[in-house]
């Protein structure tokens, strides 16, 4: 157990020092950045798809509380993903683009949270508006980072339906 803790500490230190070194050297290249983010996003994107499975059926069958719980779970994963990718050093030339992307991600996270709240309250009109805003913001986020060629870090509607 102690060995495991020690190993975890060393890994954390090593990755921390890599990030510090990259930050001092003007940040990673775009390819390195994308690779790093994709590693973080992949398991979380897959979990989201698993968690959200059957949600449209739940809504069709009016199981709103179950659907709301799924959205809450997806929101937690989304929030954790953003928290995990935000501190990764960004390529020098892409900082403003990525700042915009993170803004969109924050909006999406907020919409997800609101969708689950409104679903629990059975407020269909608000759920519709929020879903539209969630998809629209996701598309804007995708276009902002088009040149990055993200796969798992990209917004896909199919993961939420």
């Amino acid at each position, binding site marked *: 157990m102690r060995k495991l803790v020690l190993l975890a500490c060393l890994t954390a230190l090593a990755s921390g020092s890599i990030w510090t070194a990259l930050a001092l050297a003007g940040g990673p290249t775009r390819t390195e950045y994308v690779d790093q983010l994709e590693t973080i996003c992949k398991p979380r994107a897959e979990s989201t798809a698993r968690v959200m499975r059957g949600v449209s059926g739940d*809504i*069709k*069958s*009016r199981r709103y509380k179950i659907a709301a719980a799924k959205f809450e779970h997806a929101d937690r994963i989304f929030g954790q993903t953003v928290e995990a990718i935000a501190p990764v050093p960004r390529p020098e030339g892409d900082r403003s683009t990525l700042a915009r992307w993170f803004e969109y991600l924050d909006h999406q996270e907020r919409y997800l949270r609101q969708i689950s709240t409104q679903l629990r309250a059975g407020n*269909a*009109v608000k*759920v*519709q508006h929020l*879903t*539209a805003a969630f*998809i629209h913001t996701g*598309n804007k986020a*995708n*276009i902002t980072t*088009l*040149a990055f*060629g993200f796969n798992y870090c990209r917004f*896909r*509607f*199919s993961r939420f*339906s």
Partner: protein
Amino acid sequence: MYRQLSAALVRASAAALTLVLAPASVPPRASAEQIQSGNLVMSVHGGVSPRRLPRTRQAPAAARLASRISTTDGKPLPSVRRIEIGFGGGAAISPRGLPVCPASRLRNATPAATLQRCGGALVGRGTFPIELQLPGQLPLRRETRALIFNGRGRNGGLALWAHVFSAQPPVSFVLRFHIRKAPGPLASALVAAVPRTISRWVRLEGFAIELGRLYRRHGHPGSYLNASCPVPRPFTTGFFSFARITLAFSGDRQLSESIVRSCRVRP
């Protein structure tokens, strides 16, 4: 010559297409989705018309789908080997009662001739921007026109034939779309392999197609494309994966992007 042909085509199309739903009725507000892989960018857009559809039963509809490919560094586009268009569960193709046009009747024909031979089987139209690569000549860019006909595959399955034509320089070929069941949330897919005999000279830069036709069968109205907006009460708007466009290129490259659209329940 081209103008005369165009005028003849317009007259013939107008006669044959009086029942095809107007493409202009597709809402233009639908924005394009984009995806990039390496230097290759694909944008896709489209939608179903009308947007207001019945909640429980299917109603006549028309679909518009378009895709455009480009490179970020100005390098030539790779050849498209396969086009796959997956349709969401909200839309269904129903050619019952429509005549079937054998693909052989479209070969080496002008649009006017194809309409004369297979006008009854017309189910859509479109454009295919191409780059023509002829030996010893600079590449030529053309926006070719396409007429789309109801067909039947060798195994009897549903199919569509896109007759692509340009008068100057003369280009005419047929893309054979076979309709098959698609995996996942998409109900069916139109799949066309671009033969090497075509891709050798012609580089596809994208496509834009409109599908939909109203017709009468034994006195009863029929529609080639039908759609519904199956959202539960009290919801009045639904979001669905309308389509997924996949283009496979030479060199084992592939781009795939989904189009998400909304529908409203018709009261």
